[in-house]
């Protein structure tokens, strides 16, 4: 063993492989992309990788209307989607928790949307909202409510709503399942104590159940704010950012800038600007989670 003897302490030595791998697959690419955001790197001109432009990409971003529209739209989209998913997920969890029979099977069925690839969900909803052969228009016309063909995915407002709907359909189960886990782990005693203390069912929910569930809400929010970029697939498939960029979210805009327009330096600058958003949300929810766990006395 003398051969391997090293001046490094065993813990550091043992962690070394992990460090090396993380450095290779995470840290280096990250640094590289950060570097490219300060260059005029174009995918089709490898030499441009060495063309240092300083803060120019970022300066342009500040005045780029399309970017800020996408930024704002993403923010609104996320806010609406996450809150809607939370409310629906909570409702579903509360209903399933009340079930006395068939709970297992419903629980399993409820998770189906999570098992689909977002691309498939995108195709599915694109079909549902298709103006000629789509399910929705077909239903409206068969029921005789209207015989106009509504161009769901072409009208900017309805297109955004359609995307929102697909997103909510796919991700509500994450909230439902996590909140259901919380409900099932919840002790009965405080609820009964609250009933005796004079609470009606709504007050029990408001003052006891909901505070107890908050850590689970934050866990779900934190998870969702990490994987929310999956919405890229659906936008890409359903509208590809159109019509006229009206459904463009940050992720589609960045991908378009980087790969279609081949302006990789610019795309990376956009990524770093928008990553702040992601980091902010994640940190925020983790903070909330830690605080909630403290006050719940470690029960969650």
């Amino acid at each position, binding site marked *: 063993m003398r051969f391997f003897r090293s001046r490094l302490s065993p813990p550091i030595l043992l962690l070394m492989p992990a460090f090396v791998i993380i450095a290779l697959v995470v840290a280096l690419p990250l640094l590289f992309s950060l570097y490219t955001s300060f260059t005029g790197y174009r995918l089709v001109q490898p030499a441009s990788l060495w063309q240092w432009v300083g803060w120019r990409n970022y300066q342009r971003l500040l005045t780029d209307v399309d970017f800020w529209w996408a930024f704002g739209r993403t923010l609104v989209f996320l806010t609406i989607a996450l809150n809607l998913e939370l409310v629906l997920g909570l409702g579903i969890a509360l209903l399933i928790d009340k079930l006395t029979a068939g709970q297992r099977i419903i629980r399993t069925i409820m998770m189906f949307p999570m098992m689909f690839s977002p691309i498939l969900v995108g195709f599915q909803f694109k079909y549902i909202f298709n103006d000629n052969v789509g399910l929705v228009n077909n239903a409206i016309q068969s029921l005789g409510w209207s015989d106009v063909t509504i161009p769901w995915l072409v009208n900017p407002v309805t297109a955004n709503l359609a995307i929102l709907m697909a997103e909510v359909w796919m991700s509500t189960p994450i909230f439902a399942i996590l909140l259901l886990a919380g409900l099932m782990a919840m002790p009965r*005693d405080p609820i*009964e*104590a609250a009933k*005796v203390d*004079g609470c*009606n069912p709504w007050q029990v929910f408001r003052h*006891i159940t909901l505070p107890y569930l908050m850590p689970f809400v934050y866990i779900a929010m934190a998870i969702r704010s990490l994987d929310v970029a999956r919405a890229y697939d659906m936008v890409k498939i359903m509208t590809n950012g159109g019509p006229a960029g009206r459904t463009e979210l940050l992720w589609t805009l960045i991908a378009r800038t980087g790969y279609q327009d081949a302006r990789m330096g610019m795309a990376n600058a956009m990524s770093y600007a928008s990553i702040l958003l992601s980091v902010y949300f994640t940190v925020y929810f983790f903070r909330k989670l830690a605080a909630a766990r403290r*006050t719940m*006395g470690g029960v969650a």
Partner: protein
Amino acid sequence: MAEVKLQKLVKKYGNVGVVHGIDLTIAHNEFVVLVGPSGCGKSTTLRMIAGLEDISGGTISIGDRVVNDLPPRSRNISMVFQNYALYPHMTVKENLGFSLKIAKQDEATIEKRVAEAAEILGLTPLLARTPGELSGGQRQRVAMGRAIVRHPDVFLFDEPLSNLDAKLRGQMRVEIKKLHQKVKTTIVYVTHDQVEAMTLADRIVIMKDGHIEQVGTPAEVFEQPKNTFVATFIGSPPMNLLDATTATEGGRKVAKLADGVTLALPAAAADKVSDGQAITVGFRAEAFSPVGYGLTGDSEVAAIERTVTLPEPLGTETLLYTELGGKEVQGKMLNPRPVQPGEQLTFNLDLSRLHVFDKASGKSVLV
């Protein structure tokens, strides 16, 4: 005025009856303890009074209202749960004030009542803490405080002390007793511990398998148990019970034990039994003492010489295990001297304190 009245109260889970039509009237400001072995339906009964369980039959009234179909919040009761059931996300102060806040009391009233309750229970220094930062005994006190701030008509306690260690349990028992003296209110208290029942209750309700076996003051259930179940459940050590047959000897009714010993029955029991009847005679360890170490007074005694198989010294008294009527019995030696196993002693059995039960039904012939 909050009298609690249970009439023909029944609880069934599916087809399984758990409480079989019990009748009980609890007077205003009375401290009643429901006691019985685990699973006999005490908690179920209490939870039906609270409104946490639906009732399958009968009526419950609190004051002059029938509350059968009222939700817990409309019954003006408070309950202390076995596991405290504090709200983990609220401070002690918020826990105490919660019911008042829900009742939309103004801040000043809440502040005042919480301070009062905290003072009574010694919680004032802990008001800012959360339940997670309290010891078991402190949590128990918060649970009690939460119950008393409301000034309810009835307090319900479900085994509130069973999660505490023996020493703390003793202390809290005293505190609950004092609390009742301070805040005169009707209390229904559930426990499986007969010592708690004896020390706390104005009246004890002894339950078994969903039936009430006996209701009475601690002295009554101790001295005049209605049946062998109550006789063995109340009192420590449990009453000695021996099978016997009645006969008439020398003009007196006697009980003949399995080993031939005859015991003259007390006059009150004599005319309630017929010759040859199978009975169970019972006596407490206090009524069976070595000569000179216990029995005083001039009631009639039977002198019985026995070998001590095991002495169990408890300080001010020693329990003596020996044999009578073919069974192991316990006697009590007051102001004891050291006793060795195998020692021969003459015991006096106080015949006036014999209990006589019909063997078949287990019912006392005396009450």
